[in-house]
């Protein structure tokens, strides 16, 4: 089994940001992503209308450096204005070299 140790970055954000966040993570070097629809509450309550969907939960598996770049962009350009949460975990990925 060829397991590679990588970072799993999970971002939960208001659904309206979907397009922008996908571009963002791609620009920072992510090779792929997985996205699920979610709902939730945090410090900022409800935000836009349901017509735009609610929250998205975006997962990207990346190397350590890319992970850091993604988090930094989020912190600078999204955290001040939008409802976003982001966190990182260590995961072991099958054929992980594909994703860095």
């Amino acid at each position, binding site marked *: 089994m060829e397991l590679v140790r990588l970072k799993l970055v999970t971002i939960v954000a208001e659904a*309206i940001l979907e397009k*922008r966040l996908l571009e963002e993570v791609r620009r920072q070097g992510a090779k792929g992503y997985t996205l699920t629809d979610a709902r939730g509450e945090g410090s900022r*309550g409800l*935000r*836009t*209308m*349901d*017509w735009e969907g609610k929250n998205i939960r975006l997962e990207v598996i990346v190397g350590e450096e890319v992970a850091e770049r993604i988090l930094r962009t989020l912190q600078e350009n999204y955290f001040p204005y*939008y409802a976003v949460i982001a966190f990182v975990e260590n995961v072991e990925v099958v054929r992980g070299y594909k994703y860095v």
Partner: protein
Amino acid sequence: MDISELLRLNLLSPMVLAFFLGALAVWLKSDLTFPEGLYATLSLYLLFAIGFKGGVELSHTSVQAIALPALATLLLGLLTPVVAYFTARRYLRLDEANAAALAAHYGSVSAVTFLAALSFVQASGHRAEGFMPTLVALLEVPGVILGILLARRASRGGRLGEAIREVLTGKSVFLMVGGLWVGVLSGEEGMKKVEAFFVAPFQGALTLFLLELGMVAARRLADLRRLGVRLVLFGMAVPLLHGSVGLVLAKWAGLSLGGAVVLATMAASASYIAAPAAVRLALPQANPSLYLAAALGVTFPFNLLLGIPLYYATALRLWG
């Protein structure tokens, strides 16, 4: 039919009742929820259907007939955001971004309020011009763009072009304008084929939609309490202002009494489908609670209950 009778009819239509039923669900803490996707499906259906009907009507409207009303609508699209912006600055003492966000909402149009006005006019025995849905599509866009322009200094530079692009290709505008074109091109022949889907069940689908909208609006009421009484007054004064301007321009453009009431209502209404999404992306520093509570929590029910009959009563005088 006298006005009190019309008011009763308006209040007791299934759509309006469904709106309050939705609010009641929230108030009683019922676990009623709409399945994910149903709200979006209904929006999609309603927007496309409105556009389509407008298009079919347009397909047998002459350019002369629609030229002046279209001009009047464009004027409304330029005037109303400016009025709303300065009212918000002066009276609500909001910063530029928040005032601009409100301007974008009150400068564009609420499709559901439009439909309520149409039903009201029909029930009162009058008839609005067939091309009214065309005017909705026309009024939907400029308000949002002007609002964003007004906030330009406030916004963190750059993204203006992107924002305008996003409004124009945003799903609400795209569906309505797209439906319009499908209607124009396929005409009465096309209408016959899809009438049983896009026309006959329309008001029923709208009833379900309003059930959900009532729930969304009721959840906004908490925001409203926090934001205070001035916002409530704003949410009722601005529609009256815009509605009056709408009536005057309608008269100028030679619309019928029915068409005038509908155009006034359009001007008086605040968008809560296209505008919030566009504003959230273009003016993230504006507070969504503010503009959603005002547009959906105050102005929408105000127009539904009192605004439309008022515009009608006024029009009766002007056209009488």
